[in-house]
Each structure stands twice: as structure tokens, then as C-alpha cells.
């Protein structure tokens, strides 16, 4: 048995899976609401809309909880994309992904691409929550809806960001599974073999927050 180390504490796993369930259901019900005659997943509008709004609240709790967790534990240093620092690391990462290099430097818990994706999701989730609640209760935030260009524009934003979620989730699932089964398992068990290093052998870059997440 390999020696294991903790990669994802329990709260990270809980929020990961509630958010995953919420977003998946939001996308499925959302696509149905958008095109009930093409995307025939339900046979009425009531169920998917109720599910959509219920999952909207689950997503709100998940987002707030995850952000709170990240702040109090210092985990935000692992995830938050910093344009200044992380862009510098992009070339070496892209070389690895494009098979131009066999390995990449150790970036810490997540590589700059992952950081960008995960920070982007926070941003996108906030956009969905804001535009979603405007559509849900148009008369609670009339000024906000107008500021964004009116309710049709709000709908367009909500729908475009849904596509962004779909595309980025696709990439996320592929990249994480292709990194190796241990990476996938670690989001269930929390643990990863101690010597699993993402083929890293380059120079070390500082690993902020490592002590906390481990």
C-alpha cells in the first residue's frame, strides 16, 4: 500500500460535490427551460423550474460556504488566479499540455490553468446567481435588471454563461480524469499517494497555503 497524504479536506469534498450536483442539475433543467421542444428531458415546465430554483439555493449555499472556507483556512491562495503571478507560469504549463515538455514545474496544489478555471467558476456562478435572481423575481431588483440592459439582456447573459459552464465542465472532467485515476479518487477519499507528483521534476516554485490544505 502506498503512503497516502491528505489532498482534499472533508469540507472541500462536500462543497465540490454539492456544487457539482447543483450546477449539473441547473444546466440540465436550464437547457430544458430554454428549449423545451428540442431538449426533451421533462414533460412539463413545472418540475424543471422548481428543481432549477431549488438548486439555485443549493448553489448559493455552496458558493458562500466554499468562499468562506477558502478565506478562513487560507485555501484561497491555492485557488485564486493572480494575473501577475500565474500568467508567468502559463508557458511552461502549456508546453506540458501540448506535449512539448515531459514535465512541468511544481506550481503548488493547482496549476495556473486550474486556478484560472476555478476562479472563473466563482465569477460565473456569481453572474448566474445575480442574473438568475433577477429573472426569478424581476420586481425585487428592477434597477439592476435595467442596469444590465433589461430582462432580455439578462436572459442572454444567463444563457451564454450556461454554455461557458458546459464547455468548462467538459474540459475539467477530461483534464482531471486524464491526469490519472488517483486524482479522480482523491475528490472522493480526500487522499492521494504521497509520491504522485503530476510528473513534476522542474524547479520548485513557492507553494502558498500548502500547510493548510494538507
Amino acid at each position, binding site marked *: 500500500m502506498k503512503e497516502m497524504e491528505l489532498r482534499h479536506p472533508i469540507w472541500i469534498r462536500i462543497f465540490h460535490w454539492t456544487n457539482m450536483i447543483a450546477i449539473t442539475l441547473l444546466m440540465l433543467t436550464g437547457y430544458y427551460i430554454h428549449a423545451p421542444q428540442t431538449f426533451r428531458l421533462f414533460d412539463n415546465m413545472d418540475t424543471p423550474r422548481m428543481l432549477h430554483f431549488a438548486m439555485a439555493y443549493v448553489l448559493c449555499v455552496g458558493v458562500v460556504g466554499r468562499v468562506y472556507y477558502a478565506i478562513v483556512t487560507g485555501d484561497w491562495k491555492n485557488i485564486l488566479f493572480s494575473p501577475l503571478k500565474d500568467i508567468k507560469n502559463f508557458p511552461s504549463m502549456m508546453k506540458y499540455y501540448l506535449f512539448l515538455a515531459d514535465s512541468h514545474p511544481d506550481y503548488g496544489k493547482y496549476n495556473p490553468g486550474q486556478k484560472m478555471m476555478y476562479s472563473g467558476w466563482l465569477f460565473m456562478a456569481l453572474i448566474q446567481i445575480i442574473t438568475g435572481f433577477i429573472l426569478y423575481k424581476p420586481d425585487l431588483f428592477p434597477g439592476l435588471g435595467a442596469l444590465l440592459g433589461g430582462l*432580455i439582456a439578462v436572459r*442572454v447573459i444567463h*444563457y*451564454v454563461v450556461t454554455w461557458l459552464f458546459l464547455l468548462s465542465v*467538459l*474540459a475539467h472532467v477530461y483534464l482531471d480524469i486524464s491526469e490519472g485515476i488517483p486524482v479522480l479518487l482523491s475528490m472522493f477519499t480526500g487522499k492521494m499517494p504521497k509520491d504522485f507528483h503530476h510528473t513534476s521534476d522542474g524547479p520548485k516554485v513557492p507553494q502558498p497555503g500548502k500547510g493548510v490544505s494538507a
Partner: protein
Amino acid sequence: MPTKLSRREFIRLCAGSAAAISMSGFLAPFMAEAAEAGAPPVIWIQGASCTGCSISLLNTVHPSIQDVLLKVISLRYHPNVMAAAGDLAIQEAMYKVARENKGRFFLVVEGSVPTAADGMFCTVGEENGKPITFQKLVQDIGGQAKAILAFGTCSAYGGIPATPPNPTGCKPVADVVKNVPVVNVPGCPPHPDWMVGTIAHVILYGDYPELDEFGRPKMFFSGIVHDNCPRRQYFDNAIFAKNFSDPGCLLEIGCKGPIAHCDATTRPWNGGVNWCIKSGAPCIACTEPQFPGWPMYERLPEMPIAPGITTTIDQVGLVLGGAAVVGIGGHLIGNIATGRVGFKKDEKEGDN
């Protein structure tokens, strides 16, 4: 006939669904009485409009209200119904009334205000041989009114004339006159009751009714069409019309009921005979500030992807999705070829 109608009763009457058919007839005697007792004058002017709002107003079936509106109340410069014309109308009927009733009269504006080329796209008369632009008229007269009643989406929010590319620089009244409150009564055209009710309110109480965030009287514009729609059961059951006049919810042929504020659900048009959705035509959200900034018979507008080129969001999404799948496939092949995935990985890990 009771002399006094309390403001609360008035609001209840105008907002209530029972009023749908009888509102004008009921209000007429009160308005006539108020007008005789010296109600504030109402001046009506038209700019970049199609006159549809006036026609809609004159369409009120109740003859008594037409009498009131046309004779008793000072609709003194309504271009379609007044007696005087030309310089006389402008000087006598308008500037004089405004001067004598400064801060007390109400100005109804129909149509938006062209502001490009110093407003020369719309002139309404002459003064000393020089044209008077509609913009100047609205500013001169409107600036002295107690409030401006912007009737129709054009004057309230810009409407059709202000739709891009908008070569005449049309603007809503509230953008042209800043120092006077503006009551927006949108609609393309507005329901006659919305106009009659608003005029009745200012005549009976000398002031305008309570407004929502977008300057619309709450008594007419606080409900969303989709929430009160008689076809709502079809929506909930996902039964959609494929054509105009089919039974079913009209969402898939572009209904904008989910975003439209309007009480036509309980206040049918043409004297209570029918209304947009009941007659099988999707709501086009004609009362909303951004009207007509959307395709009427599609659910969502297309997305600009390059100057002058638009496409649907779904097409963009599918192309990007296809690209992602190709990218993933390519990468997977690379991964296998270089031995990053598969059994070799473990060996390599072991070597580390």
C-alpha cells in the same frame, strides 16, 4: 353622482379588474365636474410618433369620456383634434396656456424627441419665420409644466424611433427635460384606460399617481403578463403553440410575457373584446424600457460575433463544444502516445 372620489377609491377602481370595461364611463362625470371647477389644463403635443397613441385614446368606446376629453378638458393643442392651426395655435393655444398656468398644467407628449441636427428632423411650426423644433417646444412648454405625461413607449423610453441606428437622435422626454417630473405611460400604443386613468388622476387630484422604478403608474403596470396569463396552464404543462392562433403557450413563438409589465390580462383592448395573447399573438413587451430591442417572434436575440454578423448563442456554443471535443480527442491521443495515461504511468511514478 358623488362629488368626491377618494384617491384610494380611485386607485382601487383603476387597478381593479372589474374596472376593465367600465372605468372610462365611471370616471367621466367626475372628470367633467372637476374640469368645470377649474381643473389644471392639459396640453397634448406630438413629436416623432405614428399618432397611434392618440388613435388608441380616441378609441375609448365610451362616448361620454370622449366628450370630456375633447371638450371639457383643455386638450388645447392636440394636433389631431384642436380647432386652431398654425402660428395661432402655437402662440395662443400653447405658449399662452403654459404661461398663464405655469407650474399647474400638465403636458402630454406623444412620440420621442429628435435631437440630432439641433432637432431639425421634427419641426412643429414657425416663430418669426423660423422653424420651431419639437425639441425646443418640449423644453419650453415642458419646463413650465407641473409634470409631463409621456404617453406611449416612444416618448417614455425612445421606442421605435430611437432604435439603432437612430439617425435622428431620438430621445425619451425624460432625457430632454430634466427639471420636471415625467410620468411614463408606455405601450405601443398604450391602452386607452392607462391614458384616461392617468389624465383623470392629474385632473382630480392635481398631481400624478405613484410611479414604479421606470416612472410608470403602479396602478396599471405592477403585474407581469406571464404571472397572470390565461395560457399559463399550457406553459406549466409544456404545451406550446407552433403557430399564431394555435392553442398552447406562445413562448416558443417569441412571447415576451415573462418580462412584460402590463395589465392587459385583466383589461382587454377594444372595449374589453380581446387582447394580444388571447388573440393568439405573442406579447412583444411593448411597455418595457428596452422595447423594441428584441426579435418579436424569437425567444432570444442573436449574438454579435463580428461587426455586422450575428449568430445564435446555440450555434456559437455548439461550434466551441465541437472544438472542445476535437481538442480533447487530440489531447487524449497525445496522452496515450506519450504514455502519460495508461500503465506506463505507474512505472514512471515508481521511478520517481
